[in-house]
């Protein structure tokens, strides 16, 4: 699984421009699904076999990542930009970005009077080594992702875009290992989550599932003087109770706990006070969809070095397999 993680996290695919990651995911899943579709917003929707009966379950992990978009190229070839999704500006300073056409650049900042303040994005720029506007292979509207190579620390893995390539990998691995299921399964590799869970809205509308399950990352409370949160790296996948966008259906939460306990998979309870996932949009599709979220704990979310625990990822796969293949249902 580690090589798949590395392959996928290093692909640049900010919201709205998921072509490259979508092509890579398609190759990985095609042998295991009966149908693959791409919808008008760019979601990749895979149907696992033609089972009837059971529940129609939509499992979603988002393919897109946060990034930047070019707003202006000045006379000297310096590039001005705006954010795609929630980018912490302080992580930009001295950082590197990779455009979809392969061009790599460095983020610099204008001089400010107060060196300890983070400048606004208007005072930042990207330097790709061009001397003039006409030499610059990048134009207004081009997008880039943050660039930081994958790092295998053994138990811990670090990369940009663990949010939510790690969820994408969990889905792919689950598809690979899933032998049988009593349910109709739709694996949605969603687009444009980072700009407001937009892909999930339309995918859920189209599928009309009985149950929605997002697989995404969540923060942890286990770093020095960090946010006080009851989730830690290495203690198992997290079962989301609520976040700022939704309250998980209690029946879904109880179901996830029950299955985890039966299969002796470690788990944690997650209350996230800052952020949400595709599940919030699935829940309010049409006449409503009971929803929940299986979270992979992750440190330093939305920085170029997001860290997950490999055993958490493996246990997330195990839990998802148990949830989807057993007869035990949430309702």
């Amino acid at each position, binding site marked *: 699984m580690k090589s798949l993680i590395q392959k996928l996290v290093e692909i640049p695919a900010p919201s709205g421009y998921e*072509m490259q990651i979508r092509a890579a995911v398609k190759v990985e899943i095609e042998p295991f699904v009966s149908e693959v579709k791409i919808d008008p917003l760019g*979601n990749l929707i895979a149907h696992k076999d033609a089972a009837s009966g059971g529940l129609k379950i939509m499992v979603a992990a988002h393919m897109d990542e946060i990034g930047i978009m070019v707003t*202006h190229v000045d006379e000297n070839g310096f590039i001005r930009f705006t954010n795609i999704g929630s980018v912490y500006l302080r992580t930009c300073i001295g950082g590197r970005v990779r455009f979809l056409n392969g061009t790599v650049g460095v983020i610099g900042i204008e001089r400010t009077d107060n060196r300890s303040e983070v400048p606004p994005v208007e005072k930042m720029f990207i330097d790709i080594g061009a001397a003039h506007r006409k030499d610059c292979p990048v134009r*207004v*509207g081009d997008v880039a992702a943050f660039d930081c190579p994958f790092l295998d620390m053994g138990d811990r893995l670090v990369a940009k875009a663990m949010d939510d390539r790690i969820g994408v990998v969990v889905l792919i691995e689950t598809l690979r290992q899933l032998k049988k299921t009593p349910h109709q399964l739709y694996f949605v590799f969603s687009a*444009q989550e980072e700009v407001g869970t937009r892909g999930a809205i339309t995918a859920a509308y189209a599928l009309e599932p009985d149950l929605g399950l997002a697989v995404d990352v969540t923060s942890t409370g286990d770093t020095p003087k960090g946010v006080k949160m009851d989730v830690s790296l290495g203690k198992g996948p997290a079962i989301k109770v609520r976040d700022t966008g939704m309250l998980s259906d209690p029946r879904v939460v109880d179901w996830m706990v029950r299955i985890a306990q039966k299969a002796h998979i470690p788990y944690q309870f997650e209350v996230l006070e800052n952020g949400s996932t595709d599940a919030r949009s699935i829940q309010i599709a049409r006449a409503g969809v009971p929803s929940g979220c299986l979270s992979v704990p992750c440190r330093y979310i939305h920085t170029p070095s997001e860290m997950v625990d490999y055993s958490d990822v493996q246990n997330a796969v195990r839990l998802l397999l148990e949830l989807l293949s057993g007869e035990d249902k949430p309702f």
Partner: protein
Amino acid sequence: MKTKRGAISKDLPKLRSAEIQLLERLCNAISVSGDEGEVREIVLEQVKPYADEVKIDALGNVLVTRKGITRRSDTRRLRVMLAAHMDEVGFMIVNDEGEGIFRFGVVGEIDSRQLPGHAVKVGSDHIPAVIGAKPVHLVEESDLKHVFPLDDLRIDAGPGNGKGGKIKVGDWATFAIRFKRIGPSLRAKALDDRVGVASLIELVKHAPANIDLLAAFTVQEEVGLRGAGVAAYAFDPDMAIVLDCTPANDLPDWHGEENIQYNTHLGAGPAIYIADRATLSDPRLVRFFIETAEVQGIPYQLRQPGGGGTDAGAIHRRRIGIPSISISVPTRYPHTAASIARFSDWQNTFSLVYTALSKLTSEVLAGER
């Protein structure tokens, strides 16, 4: 009274004095978000003779259908939704304090520094009133550094308009400035988005035959893109093009340096959106519009990606997803008493959208997004 149908005409319809007069009527009307009746009436009067179907929905959107003509039995006509919003930012009277003084709420985003000392007009009778300000003689030196607090501002209709007078709580109001043509420019309140409404009316009148034109004159865009989403749900189109206005902040930089946050330039033609805060335009449509402009020799610009939002934000998220893009007329000082646009930008925007529509086929959406 419908326009003749047949081969796609090479003659682009031109915007002339009749169209400018219509724009003048539209700009001078009062139609604040939630109270779009006055503009709606003008729209209905204009589109009625041309439409195959006209519907007014639960929120007050005007939904107009003009069907195309299929040439070959094996091609399905593309259902193209176009949207322009009828509402403008403005005010609502929320309390009658007696003697013609009224407390008001701001509807939509208006910088409160744009309010004091302005003339307004209120209600369906366009009753004149003013937003006054404390005389400078009575203002403390230190107060000059602060904005007039919004809570302190009032609409004053004169003492004769006291309790029981013509203005009531719940009435809507706008800036009172009247439309004026000045050389190459148009100056009015509510160019955002009466210019889009005027363009859409013309597109209904001259709808190209190769597509089904689904025109939505939407409501409540300024208070959260409220009308566009329900219109899109009702139409269920194959794609959507939104006609709006976008700021041209292309003024000189204080230090004489390059202005790098201009958003758009006045006079540089229709602004094609790649991204704003509400929508990541479908890249296939962005490419199509750029190619169309270049092939036809129509000036165009790319709106700087960044903040803001148009009806496309609500439209593209409806149903199973609707590929969308916005094409806007650059406008200086939107959401103030007097905004300014160039007539040439309006003409070129109309030309670009008209030409693009007449060249549209389902090939545009054939590949993956």
